[in-house]
């Protein structure tokens, strides 16, 4: 966060300096970008973040390991349990805890449910940024069903605090599998509508194709991950590259697009939703209806001294956590690698030279969530 503004260039009177945010409706929270505008064209762009900063990393140093999990939830508040997983995996690695097969599959199901929920939110808000009101309401209704399923099992909707070391906190609700199956049927029907409203709309084509092109080399060097990286043609997905939980057991593809523009990022997210539905369908078959949901974890979590970096592929990309343990029951240092944090760095690359309206479309295609960026 900075109170800094752009200084006007001496002798230039055609550049207008505009503060976009932190209260701007299209910044998905509290991003502030100082823009130099020459008419509608952006000449300079300096992003400022930190308006939602809570210093989770410091708080987590003062908490015991189980207490950290609810705090990780509060980072990427759109994708719920996805945030808990890297931390849980890292500690399981350090402790050497065995996770039962069924627990891993339940975890993966929740992970993919939240990916669907998160992408639905993205779709609604992105279309709202482009000016269409209706898809926002549609996607939020559909997300409501997912959150209802999560609440029935985990007790909370957005911040469930559901994963724990060695498995999950409690067994799934008896209706869970049937409800997920119904949800998938429902979503498959709805996806046809969303294709009509988003991917096939000529207005969306006009606004996104060829806008905000991110080259493959630039994307890799900038540390961009997730759908944004895959839309630039790099098939890097943590689920395939460093498989975790039940991902080795299921079949899915990594959708990539060579274009790297805003439309490609939209398209990749759509295909990811189809892949999520596919993974969930397989897991519905694979997951035993009854069985253990939690492995044997020690009562007091005290990992041996050491360090571990674990990452998962959350809705926005590689969400990593770097835990250093000093052998006590509190972590010595927890460092979160936010996917949206890395993705947001490309704002100056993509904004400069674009039109102001394009900037809104580009920003919505990056899908930032400020709980995770500002931590």
């Amino acid at each position: 966060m900075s109170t800094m503004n752009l200084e006007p260039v001496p002798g230039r009177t055609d550049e207008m300096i505009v503060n976009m945010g932190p209260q701007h409706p299209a910044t998905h929270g509290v991003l502030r970008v100082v823009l130099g505008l020459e008419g509608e064209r952006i000449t300079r762009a300096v992003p400022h973040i930190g308006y939602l900063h809570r210093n989770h990393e410091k708080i987590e140093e003062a908490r015991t390991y189980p207490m950290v999990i609810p705090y990780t939830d509060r980072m990427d508040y759109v994708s719920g349990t996805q945030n808990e997983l890297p931390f849980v995996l890292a500690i399981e690695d350090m402790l050497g805890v065995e996770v039962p097969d069924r627990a891993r599959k339940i975890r993966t199901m929740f992970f993919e449910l939240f990916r669907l929920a998160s992408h639905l939110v993205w779709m609604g808000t992105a279309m709202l940024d482009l000016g269409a009101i209706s898809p926002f309401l549609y996607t939020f209704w559909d997300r409501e069903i997912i959150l209802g399923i999560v609440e029935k099992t985990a007790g909370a909707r957005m911040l469930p605090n559901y994963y724990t070391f060695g498995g999950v906190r409690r067994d799934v609700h008896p209706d869970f599998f049937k409800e997920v199956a119904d949800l998938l049927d429902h979503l498959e029907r709805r996806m046809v509508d969303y294709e009509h409203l988003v991917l096939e709309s000529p207005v969306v084509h006009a606004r996104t194709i060829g806008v905000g092109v991110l080259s493959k080399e630039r994307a890799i060097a900038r540390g961009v991950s997730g759908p944004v990286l895959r839309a630039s043609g790099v098939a890097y997905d943590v689920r395939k590259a460093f498989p975790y939980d039940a991902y080795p057991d299921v079949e899915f593809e990594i959708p990539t697009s060579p274009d790297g523009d805003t439309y490609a990022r939209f398209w990749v997210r759509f295909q990811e939703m189809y892949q999520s539905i596919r993974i969930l369908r397989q897991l519905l078959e694979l997951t035993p209806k009854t069985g253990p949901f939690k492995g044997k974890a020690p009562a007091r979590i005290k990992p041996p001294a050491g360090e571990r970096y674990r990452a998962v592929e959350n809705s926005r990309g590689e969400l990593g956590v770097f835990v250093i343990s000093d052998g006590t029951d509190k972590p010595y240092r927890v460092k979160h690698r936010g996917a949206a944090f890395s993705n947001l760095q490309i704002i100056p690359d993509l904004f400069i030279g674009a039109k102001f309206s394009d900037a809104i479309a580009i920003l919505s295609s990056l899908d930032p969530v400020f709980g995770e960026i500002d931590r």
Partner: protein
Amino acid sequence: MSQIPIPEDRHFRPRLFGYDPQKSRPWLERAVYSAYVFVFWLLVITTYAGVPALFGALGWDSGWGFVFMRALQVVLLFLLSAVLALLLILVLRKYLGKVQERFGPMHYGPAGGIQTIFDALKLLAKEDFVPAAADVLTFRLAPAVTFVASFAMFAVIPFASGWVLADTNVGLVYLIAVSTLSTYGVLLGGVSSGNKWALIGALRAGAQMVSYEIPLALVFLTVAVWSGTLSLSGIVDAQLGLWNFLPLALPFVLYVIASLAELKHIPFDFPEAESELIAGYNVEYSGMSFAFFFLAEFVELFLLPALIVVFFFGGWHGPLFGLEPGSLAAGALESLYFTLKTAVWVWIFLWIRATLPRYRDDQLMEFAWKAMIPLALFGLVLAAYMRLIWR
């Protein structure tokens, strides 16, 4: 360890005119809309038939009496546009609610029917704030300019045969002149606000106007060439046998697109683009100044579809069931036809608003200059040629 007691009234208090939302009562909503349309229709009849009849009976239909009669008609038209705005805002909110699987306003009045009146009262009660950086005179003037420019279009709109305030023979020229004026209001309001977003919105409005105004004028010209008159009543009369949208299909499509742009309506709502410019040119307006921008927007949302009906869908024409043309009953029926045809077009505009995202401003300009103007010229030539050989 004392505990502050929980206030008893923390639970929900039932609203005025409480509406039991569990009971789905679509007939009630339809009744509300019908009531509004009926009031609108009555006002139209009063304005165009009642007032002249009254003044004729009193013998005041010449000289100062005529001026006074026109003034009274204008006042009634203002009332009419207020009813129109109430109705259209309600319909917009209810329709958007319906397509978005929600209910829209439903707590005040039957089926939320008087919600808009409460909103208007709220706007009246709000402080009319003028920012420190604003140019006060221009800032105050801009909403009035916008509203008056939209409202002035009523002068030449024929609601039924002979039911028009000024049946001038240069109606089309007047329309072009007046519709351009409303952009002045937007421009002045945006520039004088002292706000960068408002400035960008105003500049976009200006740029947009430059692009759509020319095809719009060319379409007007095409209609004039085809009908052989510049008077709006004459245009309606000329399509007694065949509504213009069939022979003038291409200008008709262009006119719909251009009027979407003129309305600053959803695929082309760049000046106010709430997700880009927050609210664009009216971001600094509050209270009644904002209400006037709003009123102007909804009056235009009626008038531009009304012009589509006048130009392409036979205006007031419809089966008269043997009523004598020119009588009060025939006029009332004709104005009802006109209102209903317009309502269909308003609905189509709202439907577009519910569906489409927004284009980029330069795309509209590109489209207008590279596609719409050539096509409009082509349509003009085609219409002239067709008129030469067929009429």
